[in-house]
């Protein structure tokens, strides 16, 4: 049975909490909902950014996702919640 949007959100958050590295590519979330199209997963991940559950980390050429409490910003503060 296909996963609900809430189940996918929970799976993405879980992945972002437990992955060895704090920054994840969008492709890293694809396995959270194998039946869903990549564009749908991207939309859910971006909604999670708006909700404050994830945040963007950008190198300038690539953008990754991270949990706010797992990432340290360049200005020195741990977490940005």
């Amino acid at each position: 049975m296909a996963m609900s949007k809430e189940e996918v959100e929970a799976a993405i958050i879980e992945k972002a909490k437990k992955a060895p590295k704090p920054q994840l590519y969008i492709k890293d979330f694809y396995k959270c909902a194998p039946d869903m199209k990549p564009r749908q997963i991207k939309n859910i991940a971006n909604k999670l950014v708006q909700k404050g559950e994830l945040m963007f980390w950008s190198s300038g050429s690539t953008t990754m996702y991270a949990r706010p409490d797992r990432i340290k910003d360049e200005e020195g503060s741990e977490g940005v919640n």
Partner: protein
Amino acid sequence: MAKHDTPMLDELEKGPWPSFVTDLKRQAETHPECWDILGQLELSYEDKITHWKHGGIVGVFGYGGGIVGRYSDVPGRFPGVEHFHTIRVAQPSGMYYSTENLRALMDLWDKYGSGMTNMHGSTGDMILLGTRTENLEPLFWDLTHDLKQDLGGSGSNLRTPSCCLGESRCEWSCYDTQDICYALTMHYQDEIHRPAFPYKFKFKFSGCANDCVAAIARSDFAVIGTWKDDIQIDQAAVKEYVAGNYSVNGGSHKDGDWGPFSLKKEVIDLCPTQCMWMEGEELKIDNSECNRCMHCINVMPRALRPGKEKGATICMGAKAPILDGAQFATMIIPFIEVSKENEYENIIDVIERIWDWWMEVGKNRERVGETMQRVGLPTFLSIMEVEPIPQHIREPRSNPYVFWKEEEVPGGFERDIVAFRKRHAA
């Protein structure tokens, strides 16, 4: 912020050329942080390593692009560049600005940033160089509310689409580049402002094969104007060129001493497919052999014009070197109609077909051109639902580019891959 000794940079002010060092020194009179740019750059020259840290979590709320974080790794010595973030601002289609708009942009940047700009970056947007994190939200508010302009793309987003000036000034434009650029910018707002892909993706729109925005070299998805029918010829104007009564190249080379114009030497002999010849006083073109290089049209614009049945060629996969070397785009769709009547539905269909595939198959940080190269052109064409044609192939007469699949042959066929590989190692 104090001035720094910059003996190596000072060398770059010598000679007859414009110097960014001189520009920075002048800018430092009103924005003292520019002294620290010079100081840090001199240090980089001494150490032979960059002192910029690149990337981070800076941005404006709701956007996942448009701001590129940049920090100094020696902020104690150069506090003016402790934060020095880059802001990308979407340019107007065709880069038309009013002086009022440019002044407003510069005032905004003087207020919140270093005043330094790059007009324009290689993606096409305006680059505002150097501001602090706390200035980002106020700048974004003023930019969007007062100037009614928006940030461009960065990161794994759709990058700011760009186009040539198209039909607004150019008689050769085969479609309205500015309209499609604006329409797709609005259509794909989410993809521009929030990451969507394994890596960056760029659209560029050129009205003709002169390709003034270098779409074929710089974009993952190049829409280049072309025509289906014959080049339009005005034989009377051809005679005027031959007689020397019309300036060649629209007069752009008229100040040099090039001698009298030779149609044979300067047009016919330079045609890459040798598809032109003279019959008496008439210029003839075998249009089936023309590869739309634009040379003859450029040389004799009053005598030759693109055909009447206009559209575009779609080339895909150009990129600068990251994983592999730089590559030009590959022609995938030789002709497609470009019509605002259907809101560019057929172009959008092609774009989304490639995105759906690339988002699934593309590796992290792999441009679509690299994915195409990895899977091979035959596979890519079948994904795009495009029938192979000789023009897809560099040497169609020697490359057996037609591969039959078992289900396409009546009765099918069997093959033993293991036995084949014994004879021909992979």
